[in-house]
């Protein structure tokens, strides 16, 4: 009985130790898309912001032109 108890304790100790070792080895795995590949996705986000912004702006100008065209007819 005592032996089994000792084994169990050792086993649990081993698990905890290995878990601690594992935690030290690997960095916390997070959803770091923006920080992967040398932060290239930050550049992508910046590029897309400008593109979407320009598209919205040009679209608004386009709508103004259509309104003018309708007013003429």
């Amino acid at each position: 009985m005592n032996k089994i108890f000792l084994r169990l304790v050792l086993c649990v100790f081993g698990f905890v130790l290995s878990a601690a070792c594992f935690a030290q080895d690997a960095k916390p795995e997070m959803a770091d898309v923006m920080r992967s590949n040398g932060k290239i996705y930050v550049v992508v986000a910046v590029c897309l912001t400008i593109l979407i912004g320009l598209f919205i702006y040009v679209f608004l100008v386009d709508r103004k032109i259509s309104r003018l065209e309708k007013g003429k007819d």
Partner: protein
Amino acid sequence: MDVPRLFILNETIRNLYFHVCMWFGMMILFGVSFVYSIKYLRGFKLRNDIFAHNFAAVGTFFGILGYATGTIWANYTWVTDQSQSLGSILKEPKLIGAAIALLIYGAYFVLRGSFTDMDKKARISAVYNIFAFAMLFPSIWIIPRLVGSLHPGAPGSESGNPALNFKDIDSRLRMIFYPAIIGWTLLGVWIANLKIRLQLIKDKTLINE
């Protein structure tokens, strides 16, 4: 194209071709707007007022895009990886200066909108536009260069002045950076040109050439 390999910045150094070019484009478009405002005050031709208004509008839009891209860039470099506090970013003089400059231009459009008389509107907003351009000098060019700043070009920083000094920017970046400024500015000029032509058609009856 290879870029200089730097810590914290990593590949985001490539934002130089987008974020920085937006501000350069804004400055050039505001400069053009300023010239047309002076031209309006010399001859009181309504045509020049339309030019000044639309160049200022596209310039402000470029400024807003510069601000939006700057927030993304700052989030992944200054805030997280350089562990700057939010306070030090809110204190950043270039951010405050750029916000002041954009708000002054925002007031230009408010001023324009508040007149019903066309000639009065054109005349007062032309004078205000000259003041707004003059305010760009201290708010975005002088004060951020005098006090400590996270942006490059601040006193005490090792980065020197990459925006204007040829020796402080890597030649590989320069090869794309300068054409990119020209390209983005020409895109802005094109959009402004479309808006101007639209306005000229609208006001055809009012403008006597």
